[in-house]
């Protein structure tokens, strides 16, 4: 008798994932009921988010699927150094950005009612043109980031749900036999569609509050996933010491225990520029604006490095253990976490939890990105052109919802078209490089009075040109590589972001010094003199 589904064990991972998605729908309905109906509530949660929710939503937004799948895959292929490359640098630099930039952006946002970066930069630099130049660049940098998430979600769901519907979704090898890793799994087009619709639902209904609440839940899910998978996999490998000793005893895998031959000194150092990207992420900027007080940032600043360690360290260990267990010849390193769970552990519920954890990490970034693009189109284009007082709050909210639906649809179609040929995780580092190279703009906006609008425009244009040239070069070179192989572009041993960042700083500083400084009134607005009482009685 032909059946659409296989055994209960094959359905369990899918059921766990469906359970996770259902909880997100419930959260969406709940946040919709809490919605106050104002633009401020929809776009920035009425600036009411407290410390814990701030920590969870910001951490969830900054962690992508790379934090679980990519980290273990990179550790498998290049060893423990990936933790130092990304995790420990991010722990130091992200918190520095929140402390140095985030708090100040929150303050000007609260005082002057900004909801997007373009609104702020336009007034800070007295330049409507800057807003119109910056807007498409920010959107174009976010779109690949969206694609990384959506494509990654589709690719993650299929192997985890393999065996669920063998007749409905067959995946056969060239010789006609089923591919056991994928046969019967939810196909990427359907997985991507489900992810897009779920995220769309709770963002559409609850606005940024929906994203914040979902992020809290999702962050707890993906933090738990890594820890649970770590201990169960260790148990299956004979214990923590046995698992690590197997790596040390393996002729090829033992190199993963150190960095020699895996990562260069200069590459390791210049990776410090990548985490600066959080200083210019438009979706993170919007999250900063949700803080109830400046002190709502404190827990985020302190706990962010620890949260990163909790997620990354177990995944790094799983990656190097995979090298000790399976050898170092798996062609697609991003599949090692799934292999360790499916081939070693044989616990369908853990496979499902892993799937939910990966989706949680992906979706906790997607929701904020969809939300911020909808907000930007509404406030930086429509409202800017037509006039703020032409719209009621209700009309502005429905405009944003319309844009969010449109951007989700465009992203889904692009993901369908690009999913097969894209080196998904490589795009992520390029996105970060673009935003990191725009970081000087954010920094001088809050600290350097002498920065001018010409300097700001030169910075943005220079960054766009240099980034595009290096990105196109890298993509052309990567087309020559087989899928699954990713060699990072280095220039004289340094990350490309080094040169883009240098060009950005040089253009910003040189052009600023050669052009007229901002008006005194503008400087007074953004660099106010503070009272002696506040200085002598700092609140700790």
């Amino acid at each position, binding site marked *: 008798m032909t059946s659409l589904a296989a055994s209960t064990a094959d359905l369990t991972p899918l059921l766990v994932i469906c359970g996770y998605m259902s909880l997100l729908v419930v959260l969406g309905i709940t946040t919709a009921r809490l919605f106050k109906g104002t633009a*401020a509530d929809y776009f920035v949660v009425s600036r009411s988010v407290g410390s814990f929710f701030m920590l969870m939503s910001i951490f969830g937004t900054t962690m992508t699927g790379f934090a679980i799948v990519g980290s273990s895959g990179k550790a498998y292929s290049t060893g*423990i150094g990936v*933790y*130092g490359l990304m*995790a*420990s*640098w991010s*722990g*130091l630099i992200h*918190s520095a950005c929140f*402390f140095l930039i985030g*708090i*100040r952006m*929150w*303050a000007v946002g*609260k*005082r*002057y*009612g900004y*909801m997007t970066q373009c609104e702020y930069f336009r007034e800070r630099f007295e330049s409507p043109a800057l807003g119109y130049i910056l807007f498409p660049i920010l959107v174009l940098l976010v779109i690949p980031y969206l694609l990384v998430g959506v494509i990654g979600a589709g690719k993650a769901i299929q192997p985890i749900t393999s065996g669920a519907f063998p007749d409905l979704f067959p995946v056969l090898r060239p010789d006609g036999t089923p591919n056991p890793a994928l046969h019967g799994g939810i196909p990427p087009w359907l997985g991507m569609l489900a992810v897009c619709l779920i995220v769309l639902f709770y963002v559409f209904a609850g606005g940024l509050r929906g994203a914040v609440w979902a992020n809290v839940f999702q962050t707890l899910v993906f933090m738990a996933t890594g820890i649970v998978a770590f201990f169960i996999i260790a148990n299956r490998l004979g214990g923590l*010491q046995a*698992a*690590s*000793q197997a790596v*040390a005893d393996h002729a090829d895998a*033992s190199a993963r*225990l*150190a*960095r*020699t031959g895996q990562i260069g*000194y200069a590459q390791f150092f210049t990776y*410090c520029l990548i985490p600066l990207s959080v200083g210019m992420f438009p979706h993170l900027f919007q999250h900063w604006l949700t803080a109830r*007080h*400046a*002190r709502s940032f*404190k827990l985020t*600043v*302190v*706990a*962010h*490095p*620890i949260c*990163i*360690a909790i997620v990354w*360290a177990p995944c*790094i260990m799983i990656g*190097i253990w995979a090298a000790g267990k399976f050898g170092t010849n798996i062609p697609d390193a991003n599949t090692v976490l799934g292999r360790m769970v499916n081939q070693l552990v044989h616990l369908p519920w853990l496979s499902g939890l892993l799937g939910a954890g990966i989706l949680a990490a992906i979706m906790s970034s997607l929701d904020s990105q969809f939300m911020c693009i909808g907000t930007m189109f509404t406030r930086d284009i429509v409202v800017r052109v037509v006039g703020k007082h032409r719209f009621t709050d209700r009309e502005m909210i429905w405009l944003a919802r319309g844009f969010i639906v449109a951007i989700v649809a465009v992203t889904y179609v692009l993901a369908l078209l690009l999913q097969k040929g894209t080196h998904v995780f490589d795009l992520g580092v390029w996105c970060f490089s673009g935003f990191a190279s725009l970081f000087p703009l954010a920094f001088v906006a809050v600290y350097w*009075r002498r920065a001018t609008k010409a300097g700001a425009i030169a910075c943005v244009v220079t960054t766009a040109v240099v980034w595009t040239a290096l990105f196109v070069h890298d993509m052309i070179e990567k087309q020559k590589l087989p899928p699954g192989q990713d060699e990072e572009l280095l220039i004289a041993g340094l990350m490309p972001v080094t040169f883009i960042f240098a060009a950005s700083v040089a253009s910003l500083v040189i052009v600023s010094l050669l052009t007229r400084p901002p008006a005194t009134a503008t400087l007074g*607005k*953004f*660099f*106010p*003199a*503070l*009272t002696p009482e*506040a*200085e002598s009685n*700092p*609140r*700790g």
Partner: protein
Amino acid sequence: MDKPPHPSRHVIWLAFWLLFLLHQDVWFWSDRTLVLGVVPIGLAYHVGYSFAAATLWYAATRWAWPSEIEDWAEMPTTSATEGPRS
């Protein structure tokens, strides 16, 4: 938002740059020692680094917190050049 920094802030930023330099742990680059027989020493160092960063940032929130910024943000806008808050 540009008052002269409190002296403790200088200490915090000195600690930040020291930690920044300590990230480049060349002394563990080729070391394959397993700490407690489990964690490669290079990874253990950087996990410890993450906790050191958290400690640094706790100190920053405790002794270098820009509380004047919060006071400024909470003040009502009075100038015609300052837009409405929402």
